[in-house]
């Protein structure tokens, strides 16, 4: 009977249990790894042979078959090295484990040529799946413990070398891993504060709405007016990630292989790709359908500075994720669906030269129209808050007591998010921006005055149905900020004030 060792594979950010079956047969010396493994898995043969020789263990010169079951799912990565090696040792009776129930343990890890265990990407979703599948223990590289420790209620055994693993299996010797040094949660982005922003108090009201309800936002203004400054400070007012959100975020970053770059466990991701970034990098892609920036921004913020400078293909590809809060990346080797629930923050100039409205502007009306058209109507339509910013007069003194800091805004956002958490406790959504039409009808009842006001605006500005619902959602968030159960006309007014771009035709008949 073949040896059977359990491990976990990942498909996107979702793990699944894999049985590693090892059988030594008679016949010429080969090691065949079957089960649709990629090149990295097939190369495991050499790593395993080298590690065994390093530990003075025998690598049998017979026909060895390793099956990764289920065999009809494509597998990739080097995390299968350890279970294959353990399975081989069990099959050749080179180790005699004591008091080990292999059905309750998952083995994960890459094996180096000298028998060291190396970290691989995707550890977190693997451990999450191990817990869901009922495993009691997970054996993994010591370097992966930091990441895996986010999952509670499962025993994690971290080992630096293969020798330590064998020592534990045969003699139950285990050196516990010391606590890692947690960061203080403060990152570069959270040190920025809105008290640095002068002269845009009106806009900050909408920033609070965007942060509270997870609404997308577009800032339009001349160079140097503060668009990027306002955008970069949004993480300073967003509430910390909940445990569930943390797992989601870290799972994606783990799969992408850049978990160490995600500073601060509880900080919401803030991704700001350059406009030269390729469409695949933004949306997701590559041979193995890896997550893109929009998934790395899940539960956080995606900031697109100079938004019209992004390629048309990239901007248009945002349509589906903005609507569905997920993105499906299809490649020859793999198809994965990643979550992509983020706040889209865009910044742009009003015209190509950026100085529209001032004497410096050299753009013709046609050039301005062409520039604005780089972002299509359907994408504009999906942005709930669109605000013009003006240049700031730095020499004009701020009225006393009017400075707004991040602490004040963060308190408002936190309180408003709590209201939404209670509201959607029995729903699959977390924030107002995610409401579908049925939920809007349920949670956003309007009085007669508000309905009439909205109807007039709807006809006057030719709002789309999507824009109409967006206004109601923003009004819901505005009412939540006021801590009002009912949406009143002042909230509708606030929401209508949020759509500057839609009103450009308001003066025409």
């Amino acid at each position, binding site marked *: 009977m073949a040896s059977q060792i359990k491990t976990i594979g990942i498909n996107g950010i979702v793990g699944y249990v894999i049985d590693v079956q090892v059988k030594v047969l008679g016949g010429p010396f080969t090691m065949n790894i079957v089960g649709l493994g990629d090149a990295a898995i097939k190369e495991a043969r050499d790593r395993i042979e080298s590690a065994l020789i390093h530990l003075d263990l025998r690598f049998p010169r017979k026909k060895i078959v390793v099956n990764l079951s289920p065999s009809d799912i494509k597998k990739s990565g080097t995390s299968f090295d350890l279970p294959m090696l353990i399975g081989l040792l069990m099959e050749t009776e080179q180790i005699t484990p004591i008091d080990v129930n292999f059905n309750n343990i998952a083995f994960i890890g890459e094996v180096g040529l000298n028998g060291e265990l190396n970290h691989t990407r995707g550890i977190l979703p693997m451990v999450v799946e191990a817990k869901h599948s009922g495993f009691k223990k997970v054996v993994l590289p010591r370097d992966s413990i930091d990441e895996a420790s986010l999952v509670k209620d499962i025993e994690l055994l971290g080992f630096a070398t293969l020798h330590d693993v064998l020592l534990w299996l045969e003699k139950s010797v285990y050196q516990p891993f010391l606590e890692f040094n947690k960061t203080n949660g403060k990152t570069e982005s959270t040190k920025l504060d809105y008290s640095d922003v002068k*002269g845009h108090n009106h806009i900050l009201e909408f920033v609070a709405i965007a942060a509270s309800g997870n609404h997308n936002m577009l800032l*339009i203004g001349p160079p140097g007016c503060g668009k990027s400054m306002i955008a970069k400070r949004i993480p300073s007012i967003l509430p910390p990630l909940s445990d569930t959100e943390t797992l989601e975020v870290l799972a994606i970053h783990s799969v992408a292989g850049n978990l160490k770059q995600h500073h601060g466990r509880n900080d919401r991701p803030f991704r700001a790709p350059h406009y030269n970034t390729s469409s695949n990098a933004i949306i997701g892609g590559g041979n193995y359908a890896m997550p893109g920036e929009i998934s790395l921004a899940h539960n956080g913020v995606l900031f697109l500075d100079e938004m019209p400078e992004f390629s048309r293909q990239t901007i248009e590809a945002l349509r589906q994720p903005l609507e569905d809060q997920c993105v499906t990346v299809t490649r020859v080797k793999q198809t994965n669906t990643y979550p992509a629930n983020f706040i889209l923050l865009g910044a742009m100039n009003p015209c190509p030269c950026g100085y529209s409205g001032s004497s410096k502007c050299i753009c013709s009306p046609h050039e*301005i129209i062409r520039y604005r058209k780089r972002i299509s109507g359907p994408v504009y339509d999906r942005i709930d808050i669109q605000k013009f910013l*003006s240049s700031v007069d730095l020499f004009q003194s701020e009225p006393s007591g009017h400075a707004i800091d991040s602490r004040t805004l963060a308190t408002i956002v936190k309180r408003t998010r709590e209201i939404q958490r209670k509201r959607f406790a029995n729903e699959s959504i977390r924030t107002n921006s995610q409401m579908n039409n049925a939920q809007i009808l349920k949670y956003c009842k309007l009085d007669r005055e508000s309905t009439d006001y909205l109807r007039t605006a709807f006809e006057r500005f030719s709002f789309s149905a999507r824009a109409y619902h967006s206004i109601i959602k923003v009004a819901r968030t505005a009412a939540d900020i006021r801590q009002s159960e009912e949406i009143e006309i002042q909230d509708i*007014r606030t929401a*209508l*004030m949020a759509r500057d771009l839609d*009103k450009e035709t308001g003066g025409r008949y």
Partner: protein
Amino acid sequence: MKEKVAWIWLHELKGLILSQKKQLLELYQTPLAIYNLPVESLQIRGVDSLALEYAEEIYEKSAQMGVEIFTLEDAHRAGFEASHKLWPLVIYYRGNPPNSHSVALIGTRDLSAMGYYFVEEILEKMRREDNNVYAGFASGVEKVALEGALIKKMPATAVLTHGLETCYPKRQLRLMGKLIEHGTLISPFPIGATPNKYAFVMRNQLLALMTKQTILVEASLTSNALSIAQWAHMYDRTVLTIKGPPKSVKCAGNNALLKSKIAMPIDVRLQQDISLHFYHKVAQRLKIEPMCFDQIIQTFGTEYPDITSLVLMLEHNRIVSLNSLGKWVYNGW
């Protein structure tokens, strides 16, 4: 041959000008009689039977599209002052037959809020006097006049610059549908004719001819609406307009017509609450200088604590609006 086909034949006939065709009608009474004359007696070069085939084609296509033929004879019977030399032999229409008790409302495409409210007041006055509203089909004054008339269930007629099977501009397709159902569409051009710059001149002349009165609501000095007013004056129709502030660019055309005595002033006033909004402090300040919202808050935030609601109220009433540069502007004269 059907009589209407004969009318179309005579109307579309090349080689004779309108006055000559009308002289022939005076002599021979009907187009059919003219058609039966020998070609030599007409002394026309290039007239052949193709003209009749073309007329028949127009008639059949018109019938398929629901386009009716309104001849010069029909115009006389309907009470129009159709004796003018420029009145066409045939007018095409869809919807209700043309009504002679009519007033033309004309003006700029770049209509201000003040012009919008004046259109409303004038329409109400016309409704009380049981007048038919005539207008072109452009955006601005004409579009608002036609839509307003339909809402008030008044007879409304649009005079077009092309064949009645198409819609120009396309964005007014819905208005066209409503006019076919509840009003009238008129054109001096047969099915298949596309708009061109000469068509606009002919349309303007027809609009001036078909109405007893022409009211110019709002026009700058460069507005094409002034030419309609001038045509109406030339055709001895009454031309009225609204006197605007002396220095206003938006209604400089109104004042020019009054000054040159082409038009007389019309007695129409805005409703008091709307008038107060136009003269509101914030609105008057935006008249002098468009401002972004932050500037409005800085300037008026202390005096008006609920400045957001105030600006939205003014926007709701069309007094101010946000332009493409992100600044709030005044929409009055």
